């Protein structure tokens, strides 16, 4: 059943019966604010704030580390470029040196070979002259003998 006593809305038992409930509820509510502030809002706010600080601190640290890492990378890259240049320079100089060495070696070897050829040619010439000389002598002797023989046979006749 639905009872609404409209004639006594504001009186005791009415729908809009204002009485001491109002201030007591207000008091109760104020106490609830104080209690919840102590056991809920303050501790949780502290946790949230400290976590935010922690995250911010770590972010700062991370960005500092990132800067350092970038700096280091830059330095290392510069060093790398320098080292590469140095290496190229060293390779070219050593190539040049090796080329020069090889060239001088070849030149010397050629010179030696030429000298050898030259000396052996001279020797050969001397030998040839000697041989020709001795041959001439022999030819002379033989021709002498032939002459002598011819003369002797001629005389005997």
């Amino acid at each position: 059943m639905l009872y609404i006593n409209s004639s006594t809305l504001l009186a005791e038992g009415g729908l809009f019966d204002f009485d001491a409930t109002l201030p007591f509820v207000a008091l109760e509510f104020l106490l609830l604010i104080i209690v919840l502030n102590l056991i809920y809002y303050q501790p949780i706010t502290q946790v949230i704030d400290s976590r935010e600080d922690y995250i911010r601190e770590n972010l700062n640290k991370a960005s500092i580390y990132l800067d350092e890492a970038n700096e280091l990378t830059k330095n290392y890259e510069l060093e790398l470029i320098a080292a590469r240049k140095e290496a190229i320079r060293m390779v070219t100089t050593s190539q040049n040196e090796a080329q020069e060495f090889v060239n001088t070696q070849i030149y010397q070897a050629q010179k030696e070979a030429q000298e050898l050829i030259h000396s052996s040619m001279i020797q050969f010439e001397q030998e040839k002259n000697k041989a020709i000389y001795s041959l001439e002598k022999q030819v002379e002797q033989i021709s002498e003998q032939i002459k002598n023989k011819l003369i002797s046979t001629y005389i005997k006749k």
Partner: protein
Amino acid sequence: MLISSVKVGEHFYLTLGVFKLHAQVFIVSFFVIFILIVFSLLGTNKMSQTPRGLQNFLEYILEFIQDITKSQIGEHYYRDWVPFIGTLFLFIFVSNWSGALIPWKIIILPEGELSAPTNDINTTAALALLTSLAYFYAGISKRGIRYFSRYIKPTPILLPINILEDFTKPLSLSFRLFGNILADELVVSVLTLLVPLIVPLPVMMLGLFASSIQALIFATLAAAYIGEAIEEH
């Protein structure tokens, strides 16, 4: 037919000296306060840097309340008002939902019946008057006597309307909440009286939604009034 009978405006009177109290309001509101305190204690029991379980839930709610307060009052002053706005929201929300979800009818009182504390005009009027006090306190503590200059702004012609506003604010706050919760409980009761099964369920769901919205509206409006009082013109 006891379970589905409707009683409006009947109170279980308790006399405390010269004071007359509505005992049903205090029984249920103490229950609501008990729930809030138990949840707070359990959630803040073992707190850790990385929240889990109930602590996470409490942090979520607090950040929700902080968002409401921050958006209405502003970055600078909102922290002082979080306890007030938060308690308003939590108290009204848990009151409304306990009225809708807990079968209080099982407990029989000699007179009247147990229901949400916000079902009583005294509770909502108390909350609304506290809100009025709060925004007066906020304005005067922030701006001193210059706070009253807002009554003649933008022109002195609006003085009566500006003064009237101080009365309409608590009136609308209290009656909005009271009317919504009472109407919701009445609709559910009447529907249950007509069709006891299944049919009242959608209305009950709607009631749950509406009562949570009412808690949000009350807290947001209270924060808006405080923010308005603090604001420099």
